[in-house]
């Protein structure tokens, strides 16, 4: 029987072989590898495997339980859909980077210890940045560097936390953490990937500037591995729960202000991740199940949204709401699948978001957190409004200047499959419940009061949108976020480096150079000391008539360096010979 292998290895090895396949064979190869990952995942059984002993620690590459399997399944499914969507991208480097990124994300999910998690975590950061850089535009390059910088800083925090954890507990095992400095640093490290406020700025900065297909991959893995890691280590942490509530509202406020369609969706990632970690922070069975269910559903509709917006940008070359409109008739498949995604993310009955959002809000209510309950309900209103804005101004607003065709078949296929899964889970939520971490939870989302409540919220909020459409309409502006403060701080640091610190460096360098010149001069002629000293004393500096250079280079040297060099060299030579002979005699005597 063939033993299953850690899914990360399949993708990472598969990535290395991509350049060997060219032409029509490559798409088949890419799809084959992603299908193999799905098959391999279905063969994995609960327990730990692929343990490697390293420096006295056990590195676990395949820790399989319900939590890792639930996240692993959806990562593999979305990985397959994203690869299908990106088949028309011919750039080998981008495909290799995408495979390594998906592989390392699965590596994080199935790692059973902190060191393995950290290694895959960093591979994720360093491979995902290429999905931004391959757009080959200056703004993408800049955003990529900012993205990388933030993730390296987050990685350093994570490593610091891991080292503190290992030194205090002696264990690398990945599991729930107690309060302390180690857990603080690890939480910050996870917080960078999960886009905690105010560490979130890399997300809306970089994701809209990735390649069309790269952004689809980016939207899936980085934040969700962070959510997974929080579920593993910080389940039941009140700070995490409230951070989730704050992120849910903050994300939708900034999403409502955006003009760029991918930036709008990027802010919604922050908001939706807020829901997930609110459930995880509550920490009850229903909360964790709700958080993971929302992660699974969110991956489906968020990927679908990035696919639809990518399709619009790919076919029209425009990404601003102010430049779009009237695409419903020209791109019907994209329009319908985008509406499915919008209804799913808004939590409409019959779509997957309805189930998981209700699970999270119910878990928050049951744990008696009234503020968090209101925050999440307010975020639901904002989600509906911003997707009403996105779909209206992209597909239904009149715009006769725009002409576009439907996207290529593979893009349409991927979008239809993702939309189908959104509806499938929405109609049959039991398909989702089977794979959640806590099998015991049985949640009934389709109660009359819940369904009517959602309709009330949608219709009344929709009415406000219709009446105040002008106020919600997009504008040609950018909205400053916390990144403004980071940029200003780094400009300050850059000024400090270029100005005062550089000046200090030059002065120090000059002082050292002068001191070395004096030493060189003295080594040539120690008798010049009386002439040099006054030059460097306060009184003598004025009186000294000749410069250091003149003193050193004067033709009539009082000191003949060869006079001392030869006997000194001879003495050293004799000492080496003596030591050699002594060593030789010692060696020969000990040998016999």
């Amino acid at each position, binding site marked *: 029987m063939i033993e299953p292998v850690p899914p990360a290895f399949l993708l990472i090895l598969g990535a290395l072989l991509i350049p060997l396949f060219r032409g029509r064979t490559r798409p088949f190869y890419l799809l084959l590898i992603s299908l193999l990952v799905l098959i391999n995942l279905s063969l994995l059984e609960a327990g730990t495997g692929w343990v490697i002993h390293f420096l006295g620690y056990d590195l676990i590459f395949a820790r399989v339980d319900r939590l890792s399997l639930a996240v692993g399944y959806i990562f593999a499914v979305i990985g397959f859909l994203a690869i299908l969507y990106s088949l028309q991208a011919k750039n080998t480097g981008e495909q290799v980077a995408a495979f390594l990124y998906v592989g390392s994300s699965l590596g994080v999910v199935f790692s059973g210890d902190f060191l393995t998690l950290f290694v895959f975590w960093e591979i994720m950061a360093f491979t995902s940045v290429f999905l931004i850089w391959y757009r080959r535009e200056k703004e993408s390059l800049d955003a990529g560097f900012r993205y990388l910088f933030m993730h390296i800083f987050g990685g350093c925090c994570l490593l610091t936390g891991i080292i503190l954890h290992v030194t205090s507990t002696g264990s690398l095992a990945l599991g729930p953490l107690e309060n302390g400095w180690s857990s603080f640093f690890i939480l910050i490290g996870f917080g960078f990937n999960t886009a905690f406020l105010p560490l979130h700025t890399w997300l809306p900065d970089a994701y809209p500037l990735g390649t069309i297909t790269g952004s689809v991959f980016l939207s899936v893995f980085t934040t969700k591995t962070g959510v997974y890691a929080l579920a593993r280590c910080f389940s039941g942490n009140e700070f995490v729960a409230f951070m989730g509530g704050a992120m849910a509202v903050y994300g939708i406020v900034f999403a409502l202000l955006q003009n760029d369609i991918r930036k709008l969706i990027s802010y919604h990632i922050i908001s939706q991740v807020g829901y997930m970690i609110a459930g995880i922070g509550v920490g009850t069975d229903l909360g964790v199940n709700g958080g993971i269910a929302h992660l699974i559903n969110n991956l489906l509709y968020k990927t679908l949204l990035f696919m639809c917006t990518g399709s619009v940008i790919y076919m029209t070359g425009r990404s601003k709401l102010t430049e779009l409109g009237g695409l419903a008739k020209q791109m019907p498949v994209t329009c319908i699948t985008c509406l499915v995604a919008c209804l799913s993310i808004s939590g409409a009955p019959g779509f997957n978001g309805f189930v998981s959002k209700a699970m999270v809000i119910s878990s928050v209510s049951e744990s008696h957190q009234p503020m968090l309950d209101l925050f999440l309900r307010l975020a639901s209103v904002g989600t509906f409004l911003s997707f009403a804005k996105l779909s209206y101004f992209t597909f239904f607003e009149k715009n006769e200047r725009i002409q576009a065709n439907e996207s290529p078949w593979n893009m349409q296929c991927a979008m239809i499959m993702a939309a189908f899964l959104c509806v499938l889970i929405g109609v049959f939520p039991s398909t989702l419940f089977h794979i959640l971490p806590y099998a015991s939870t049985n949640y009934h989302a389709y*109660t009359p009061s819940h369904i009517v409540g959602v309709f*009330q919220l949608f219709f*009344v*909020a*929709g*009415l406000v949108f219709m009446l105040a459409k002008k106020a919600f309409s997009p504008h040609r*502006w950018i909205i400053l*976020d916390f990144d403004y403060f980071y940029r200003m701080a780094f400009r300050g640091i850059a000024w400090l480096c270029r100005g005062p610190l550089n000046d200090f460096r030059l002065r120090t360098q000059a002082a050292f150079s002068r001191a070395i010149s004096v030493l060189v001069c003295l080594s040539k002629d120690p008798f010049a000391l009386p002439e040099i000293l006054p030059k460097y004393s306060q009184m003598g500096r004025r009186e000294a008539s000749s410069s250091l250079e003149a003193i050193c280079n004067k033709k009539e040297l009082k000191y003949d360096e060869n006079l001392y060099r030869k006997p000194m060299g001879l003495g050293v030579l004799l000492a080496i010979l003596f030591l050699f002979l002594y060593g030789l005699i010692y060696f020969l005597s000990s040998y016999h």
Partner: protein
Amino acid sequence: MKDKLKKLFIVFAILSIPAGFLAGDNHGVFWWHHMPLMDAIVGGVGAVFLLLIIKFVASFTSKKEDFYD
């Protein structure tokens, strides 16, 4: 077509309010969960509240597109 859709939307919005009274309440934890119109109020007040917030935030964070250039 657009006007018909608008009218339909308004009719549904009005109909959803008495439907709240008929649906009853399940899983209510806080007092507002037992209000039949709670979600309609959250929808309406929340939308207006968010509109005010985004106007306030935009008043000091909105800049020209080339601001960072």
